[in-house]
């Protein structure tokens, strides 16, 4: 293996991440990986358009973990959207806050990672796959382990609220492991909130095991401050006849990188990925998705849509891997973008690697301006230009938003989207 010349960000990381005495072998292996490969270089294909190392070098001086922020119950409650009925799990700079959380005794277990020591930690999100997974694995202090036992239906959604604030631009490393056992069902909502307007670097790893015939829905909202640097590593193992659906809505931040992997490990399973990015200013959002079809008769659907204003930039890289065994695979992928400004950029790249010969795969991407003909049509019926634009843009994003399962969360996101479409666009 060749060793890349390391960059300054890697040096900073290696000098400052703490040596922790939990999960000893995972820590040691992660350190070794980081020492050998470092954080991704600008020339690395997977990070070509998203210069995270450079961004980190420029913005993050202190690589030690951010200490707990001042967070009150009132603040937490003010961020729970209207009409929400379910459990709330609160994180303060990545650390679980039992006192601020609201658990109603639903049919699942929630245990801090340090106490539970689950055997699957690091088995789904493998450290050798991405240096940011290794970085999180080396530096997370504690996290949570959620376990839904067999034949359980978690009736109400579970909301994960991440409050972030680093006084000196330090690093926040949330770590989540979720295991949903056979025939069970659960829905998660996730929202990240910046407590101030200052820079921080949040590097999350979420691992989910969806066992046989289980159904998991995971909805995320990313609406952090304009300086936040965010890397999200989201890995799922999906077993026989199971369904997993992800919805990610990205509205704000400085630089966001979402790695999302669906490993379809058996027949009859289904993976769905929906994404929306609504960007302005200089926000940069990079969605890298990866779906791996390993066995016959599995299905994946992917739809990502973007509206980009000002000098924002969107990157979409959708990889579909169909292995030789995975006959009768159905895999669909679509990425559509509307550019509202001449300075906005989109880089979109479908990547299909198909080794089986009896499959149905399709992909398509479009990037364009708002449809002038449609705009004129609406105006010709008496609708003002600004409203007509809003109506068209809202219709464009509707196809993604309709997949959000919880109504209160959907309403909350729709309100944010409507305000955005009505004002800055």
């Amino acid at each position, binding site marked *: 293996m060749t060793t890349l010349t390391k960059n300054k960000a890697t040096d900073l990381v290696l000098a400052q991440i703490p040596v922790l005495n939990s999960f000893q072998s995972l820590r040691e292996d992660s350190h070794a990986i980081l020492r050998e490969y470092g954080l991704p270089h600008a020339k690395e294909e997977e990070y070509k358009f998203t210069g995270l190392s450079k961004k980190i070098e420029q913005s993050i001086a202190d690589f030690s973990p951010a200490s707990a922020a001042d967070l009150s119950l009132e603040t937490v409650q003010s961020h729970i959207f209207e009409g929400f009925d379910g459990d709330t799990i609160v994180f303060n700079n990545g650390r679980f806050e039992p006192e601020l959380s609201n658990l109603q005794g639903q049919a699942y277990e929630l245990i801090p990672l340090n106490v539970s020591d689950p055997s699957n930690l690091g088995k789904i999100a493998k450290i050798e796959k991405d240096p940011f997974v290794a970085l999180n694995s080396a530096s997370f202090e504690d996290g949570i382990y959620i376990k839904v036992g067999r034949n359980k239906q978690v009736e109400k959604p579970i909301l994960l609220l991440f409050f972030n604030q680093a006084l000196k631009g330090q690093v926040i490393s949330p770590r989540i492991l979720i295991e949903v056992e056979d025939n069970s069902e659960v829905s998660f909502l996730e929202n990240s909130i910046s407590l101030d307007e200052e820079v921080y670097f949040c590097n999350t790893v979420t691992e989910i095991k969806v066992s046989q015939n289980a159904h998991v829905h995971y909805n995320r909202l990313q609406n952090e401050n304009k300086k936040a640097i965010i890397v999200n590593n989201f890995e799922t193992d999906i077993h026989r006849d199971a369904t997993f659906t992800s919805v990610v809505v990205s509205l704000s931040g400085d630089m966001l990188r979402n790695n999302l992997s669906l490993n379809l490990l058996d027949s009859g399973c289904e993976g769905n990925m929906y994404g929306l990015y609504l960007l302005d200013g200089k926000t940069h959002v990079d969605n890298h998705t990866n779906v791996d079809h390993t066995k016959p008769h599995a299905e994946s659907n992917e739809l990502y849509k973007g509206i980009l204003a000002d000098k924002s930039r969107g990157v979409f890289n959708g990889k579909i891997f169909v292995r030789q065994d995975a006959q009768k695979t159905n895999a669909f992928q679509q990425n559509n973008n509307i550019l509202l400004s001449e300075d906005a950029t989109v880089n979109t790249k479908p990547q299909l690697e198909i080794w089986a010969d009896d499959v149905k795969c399709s992909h398509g991407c479009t990037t364009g301006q708002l449809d002038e003909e449609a705009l004129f049509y609406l105006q010709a019926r008496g*609708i003002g230009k600004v409203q007509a634009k809003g*109506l068209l843009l809202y219709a464009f994003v509707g*196809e993604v938003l309709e997949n959000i399962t919880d109504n209160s969360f959907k309403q909350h996101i729709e309100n944010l989207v409507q305000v955005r479409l009505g004002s800055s666009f």
Partner: protein
Amino acid sequence: MLSIKNLHASIEGTEILRGINLEVKAGEVHAIMGPNGSGKSTLASVLAGREEYIVTEGEVLFHDKDLLEMAPEDRAREGVFLAFQYPVEIPGVSTTNFLRTAVNQVREYRGLEPLDAVKFLSIMKEKMKLVEIDQKLLSRSLNEGFSGGEKKRNEIFQMAMLEPKLSILDETDSGLDIDALRIVSNGVNKLKSPETATIVVTHYQRLLDYIVPDFVHVLYNGRIVKSGSKDLALELEEKGYDWIKEEANAASV
């Protein structure tokens, strides 16, 4: 109602309309015919306010107001309606939702109270009968996956809902089979009144059997070269456009 004087318009530097003069009074139906490329659709587009067309000369007054100064939405609110030759498909916007927004914006402009959902629905049901359109169709994405006939019926349905003073039908008959043509024409005829006027832009005389015009104008090379009664349309049907072209070409030499 509508007064067009010496209207010149061009697109991307090419002059399409070269001095149109036309007077339309309340209660009248005018048919504008002509060979392909004569400027018929351009005239309809310029009246509705399509931005690609630049008016280089002339004026258009609508109820004594300068129509060319107005944004497309204000023309619609003043009472000008264009039935599109190619109605646009808009995924994600249902006809019902879009029309409610449109109707209420038009009402606001005219100083009327907005319609609530119940009232809107009852008006909608009444107008749906005019063009024999199904409510299921209207709750679907606007024109998406509609047949040609359904799209044109939807245009006339929108016209019924917006209650315009001047309706411009841009080749509404093109591509319609006889049943669809009959339904669409019936709708238009039922909406006619002594206070409203209609301009029918068409390539075919067939439509004029159903929507009977008071005047027929022939457009050629961006000018109205001949006007007459509905008999002119029959003559064109029989003889084609060549004799008109010859006459016009001879006159311009």
